[in-house]
């Protein structure tokens, strides 16, 4: 993030925010590369699993450019938060409850409980996605940030509640 770039957008980003932009872009790139790396083996299992990984890799890679180019954009930040949360949620669901969709395209089909074990790359990727979310929250305006943080809190409480009630195994 350079002063010149932000001047074009008539904003100045203070020095303490710059690391958040770098972090969001860098972590998103890490997650993208991991998804790209893992795509072929998932493609072997079912083309749609592989496609999910490729799409995730593309979106996360493209997001690096978006956040670097428009660090102040609420739309970019909110899209990044939503997208990364979705991918992280897929990881959690597939490692605790099972794949929600299988080759028969039926929700809750016999593939629903095809459980995966957590592995290093998956955990690193998820940690990177959570890091991206944190960094993007930091980039939001005060009013948006407050709302988003409270929504994240609610989601967090909901997930733990599902776990403690046994709905999420």
């Amino acid at each position, binding site marked *: 993030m350079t002063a010149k770039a932000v001047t074009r957008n*008539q*904003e*100045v*980003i*203070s020095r*303490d*925010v710059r690391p*958040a932009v770098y972090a969001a872009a860098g972590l998103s790139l890490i997650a993208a590369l991991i998804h790209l790396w893992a795509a072929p*083996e998932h493609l*072997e*299992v*079912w083309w749609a699993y592989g496609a999910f990984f490729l799409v995730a890799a593309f979106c996360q890679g493209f997001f690096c450019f978006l956040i670097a180019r428009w660090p*102040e954009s609420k739309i970019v930040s909110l899209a990044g938060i939503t997208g990364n*949360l979705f991918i*992280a949620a897929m*990881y*959690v669901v597939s*490692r*605790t*409850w*099972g794949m929600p969709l*299988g*080759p*028969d395209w039926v929700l809750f089909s*016999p*593939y*629903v*409980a*095809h*459980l995966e*074990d*957590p592995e290093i790359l*998956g*955990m690193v990727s*998820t*940690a990177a*996605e*959570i890091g991206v*979310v*944190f960094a993007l*929250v*930091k*980039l*939001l*305006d*005060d009013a948006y*940030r407050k709302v988003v*943080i*409270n929504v*994240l*809190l609610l*989601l*967090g*409480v909901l*997930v*733990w509640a599902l*776990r403690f009630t*046994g709905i*999420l*195994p």
Partner: protein
Amino acid sequence: MNLIQKKLSRKDMLKMSALGGAALMLPLERTARTQLAISNRIPESQLPQPFQVPLTIPPILKPVKSTATTDYYRLTMRQAELQILPGGFGKTTVYGYNGLTPGPTLKMMQNRPAVVRHINRLPRNSFNNYRTWTSVHLHGSASLPQYDGYASDITQPGQYKDYHYPNIQPARTLWYHDHGVHHTAENAYMGCAAQYHIHNKRELSLPIPHGRYDVPLVIQDKIFAQNGDFIFDDQGHSGLFGDVILVNGRPWPTMKVERRKYRFRILNASISRSYNLALDSGEDMVVIGHDGGLAPHPVAVSDFRIGMAERYEVVVDFARYKIGDKITLKNLGLPNNVEFESVANIMRFDVVGEATDRRNNSIPDVLDNAGYWPYSPMGLKETQATGSAKIEVIRKNGLWTINGQTWEDVIESKYLRTVANPKLNEVQVWEINNPSGGWFHPVHIHLIDFKILDRNGKPPHPYERGPKDVVYAGENEKIRVIARFGPQKGRYMVHCHNLVHEDHDMMVQFNVGKANANPEDDPNDPILAAKARSIRRMRRL
């Protein structure tokens, strides 16, 4: 010009960490729970001593109704707590047919059909965090496709399904066990397995042991936790090898025997372990029957190999021993099993008295040529074959596959993909190839009985020259089998009977007499033709 001054407070970070923590911790927590359960295994040094408990014989299930043509049975799959281990260990949670493991034995007469209502009352979420759907396979029966326990024809917890069994095949030892897609190993391991016998007049007229001298033996290996529960550890889908041997659900039991012949219907119901069975006295056992019924002739063997799902009917003559003798059935071990000292013993026979009944105490030279059964493979010759197929069992890209295909490929094809399409009543030779030196795969072909033609070009072992439905594909072995495909038409599975391999995902299908048929036009479609129903709307049998 806007100045963006942004800082996240400690409170903000705490709020967000509720979700971030969940994303990172929950998968790890699930794995940790699994690992904790595995680490809680009873050490070998603390396992119960063998031969402390008596053998029990599973009860024979009575029909709930009989008509002029058909017998009706009801079985409920449910969770139960059973005292399996002696000596202060806790009760074991099992999933059993009627809460028993093995479940009750069903005894049928040839050509008298039966309807068995299987009710799934298993807990919705299992011990291993999966949905406990089931699909009951009567292994060894030429059932119609919709009653064959097709893996994807599932009965959810809270549902039931009526299975129609024709019982048209000659006398044999069958077994019923779970076959639900991706969780067969777990359900069978938890206890969903039992024997089912078809008798006929010819078999009952033979002077071989009958009645109380005709004894089912269901052999399994288990891993136990300190609290008495089973531990399911399939070592990354490679195999499950327990250090406790159960026979009819009892650990290394003893059986009191008289000085006469006994017929044992031995079923290897283990998930991944094969056995090489022998008597510690070194004396012969006589193999009189196989998966598909009686052998043409008896074969005396000092030991024999039994893979998962194989059945051998074996006669042991205890008249050779003195009262007071104790004879142990040993497992001599086989390559590529995880061996423990404790699995060298299976059970013990204690000779306690003279024979109280000397009838049916011999073995005729000719047992059964099954010439009256048109689908017997025993008379088939290679020259009759008009088709062939190749089945290669191989690990590929981290998956267990057959010809590089998996059951997921079958699902993805909307259940159309097949590895073979024999015509109805066509005789075919199938070549089963295990190119690996590190794994063995007992391959089960549904619907049919086959005869083993050769192993790596050499004659089959003497003890396996009878009608079979499972063939032990040992390391680097190529086996050719011959069969007549029938008497039913439709789609049937072929898979490895290492149930962990089957679940992940060494299973494909073939289609008899209906190549390329649209499932929706098939009156015997294995999934659509007879769907499971809700228990809440259960009909009278």
